């Protein structure tokens, strides 16, 4: 599941006939972590929904590697998602939730059982298979979601504020886990976050959105240093800018 590049080529999208149009033109480098940032309503989650196939663009193309995926159904795109909440079906146990990533028809074989046990180890949840999501902490639930994304072996991982509801220390742990897994699997990670610290911690590149368009894109270090882009600086505010 070596990471593939993701390209949004002049994507046009609007939520309704009266809604403001959004236009995305950006590239996500393969085998790297790219952060997507921007004010609320700037289209971060919409961009991810377009890449995942939950929303359809009115025009434009989405390329993942060599293939155009613009019209593909979500299940046929080489991407996995982790949302902020409700990543797990609350009435199914952890093992079943992860197994859905291997065979959505729910026919589990013996080798699957073995893979299932192995899948929970890298996220630090060995032996959690029989637990129900309700008995897990917020961080543990997100770990299960990541485990499921791993067993799916898709080259692109989308994180839509996946750790937004976790405390600072836990969030750092989870980010490090993602960075570690990304190094091992070399997948392409696209991560929506509103905290510049998240981007600085693990992302290489940054795509900055403003009013439904791409305001800036480039290496994290350059864009967040306070000298590159006025919009980014306005978003960061005085606290976050290095003096």
């Amino acid at each position, binding site marked *: 599941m070596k990471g593939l590049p993701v390209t949004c080529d002049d994507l046009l999208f609007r939520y309704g006939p009266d809604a403001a149009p959004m236009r995305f033109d950006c590239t996500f480098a393969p085998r790297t972590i790219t952060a997507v940032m921007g004010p609320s309503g700037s289209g971060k989650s919409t961009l991810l*929904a377009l890449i*995942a*196939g*939950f*929303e*359809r663009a009115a025009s434009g193309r989405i390329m993942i590697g060599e293939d155009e995926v613009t019209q593909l*159904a*979500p*299940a*046929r*795109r080489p*991407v*996995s*998602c982790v*949302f902020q*909440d*409700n*990543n797990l*079906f609350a*009435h*199914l146990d952890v093992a*079943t939730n992860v197994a*859905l*990533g291997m065979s*959505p*028809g*729910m026919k589990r074989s013996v080798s699957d059982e073995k893979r299932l046990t192995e899948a929970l180890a890298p996220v630090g949840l060995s032996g959690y298979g029989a637990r129900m999501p309700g008995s897990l902490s917020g961080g543990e639930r997100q770990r299960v979601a990541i485990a499921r994304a791993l067993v*799916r072996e898709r080259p692109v991982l989308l994180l839509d504020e996946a750790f937004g509801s976790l405390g600072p220390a836990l969030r750092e742990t989870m980010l490090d886990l993602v960075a570690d897994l990304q190094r091992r699997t070399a997948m392409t990670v696209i991560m929506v976050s509103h905290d510049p610290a998240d981007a600085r911690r693990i992302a290489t590149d940054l795509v900055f959105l403003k009013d439904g368009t791409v305001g800036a894109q480039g290496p994290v270090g350059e864009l967040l240093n306070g000298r590159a882009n006025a919009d980014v600086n306005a978003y960061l505010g005085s606290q976050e800018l290095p003096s």
Partner: protein
Amino acid sequence: MAGTLLAALCTVAVGALLVQAGGADGAGAVLADPVVWRTLRFTLWQAFWSTVLSVGLALPVAIAITRMADGPLRRAVLALFALPLALPQIVAVLGVVALYGQRGVVTGLAEQAGFDPPSIYGLTGILIAHVFFNLPLATRILHGALAVMPAEYERLSAQLGIGALARFRMIDWPAMRPAAAGAAALIFMLCVTSFAVVLILGGGPRATTLEVALYQALTFDFDIVRAVVLTLLQLAVTLAAVTLFALAGGSVEAGMTIAVDPSRRFAGNRTAGAVLGGALVLIAVLFVGAPFGAILASGMASDLANLMAQHRVQRAVLTSLGLGLCAAFLAVGLAYVLSRGAVALAAGRRFAGRPAIAETVLASAPSLILVVPPIVIAAGWFIALRTVTNVYAAAPYLVITINAAMAMPFAARLIHPAMLAAEARNGRLCAHLGLFGMARWRLVTWPVLRAPLVAALAFALALSLGDLGVIALFGSEQVQTMPYLIMQRMGAYRTQDAAGLALILMIMTMALMLAAEHFARRSQMIETEGNSQ
């Protein structure tokens, strides 16, 4: 206080029945009558099949509607599915006969296609009418359960590529199961106590229910002992059913609402499944919409101008509106008081913990009326008053109170959640700012509750306008409502007149229902806006 009133209404009725039963020697003879047992068996049998068909068919329809892209089309389907709830049974039956009766449109088409459709009188017609009423009801309940599923579930299923069957088994069914149990419970109760449908479509003693047998015992045979025994049997059946459903985990109240969900869903793909779902929804829409069209067509064919000029018709319209308005205001008033009591207790409970017994009692009091159906109360009072006064002179008061009691649970289902949400959102703030009494009512309570109260009033009025059960017993030359007049004209084989009157009554109730839905939606928007803050 409201609870006491309601309890008194039922207690007097049941008490009168028990006294009568105790003093009668004929009770044993009635119980030995095989006709009574056949009636009981048919009552349960038709209710069972009505429930199975309604809920069974509603499962795929609800899933298909939930998968539809959110937009005017889906909202229109859901709005159409809310209408049968308030369509007077007698009007619906006329529509069903116009379609599936001997000279009906559908019957004609089926005969041309070489089929020999069964007569509508008997189980077939009763089931068609009951499914017409309850398929949309069940669909809306099930859709409601699916719509509150986290939006991510839909996206996850799409991304993981879970197939239709696996998806139903693992995701949709677990989400719908409690709602399906609740819907089944409610529909079984409604069908076990079904009156107008069976009265008109039931064919003789072979297809009659306890309620209709009771009505016949009181009006045609004037066999009080028989009526008492039948009423008590009916009561035993509804009590047993409610207990069984409560044990099985189904709640009878779940379906008594007309609110719809405003959420945006992931639209899904244009696959074979979507086409199949669309076809399914279309068939359901045709099935539910056709009787409305049939009533409209046959009503337009009647001499409406002449009908409206008739003194009797004018008086029936006014009587209906007068009695209905009184009943609606009483119903909303009772529902308001009961809801306020329940909400106050809930607020006292402070966030955590299980609801206290008193709170549960207050919250479920409205459903008492499902256990003691209106016609049982009516029969009880009929028997009790018979010895004291002229029953027909007391008619208006009884029609008002019993119809109010009947509409109250539906009103409460609209008012209670809005009140609970308002209290949860504003309760602390009001306490903090020292807003009490009239000031709080004017500034906080009334603006929030206006929409649900108006919705409840319109809904209760529509339900009262269409009721035939109580007026069938107490109606006379002096006191006639629209449904009663329709029944009279039908009995006199003035089918054209009945069709015209049915159209008038349909327009009255459906206008109210659309108003109710409009206000219910507005009230819901106020609720959701508050939640997102």
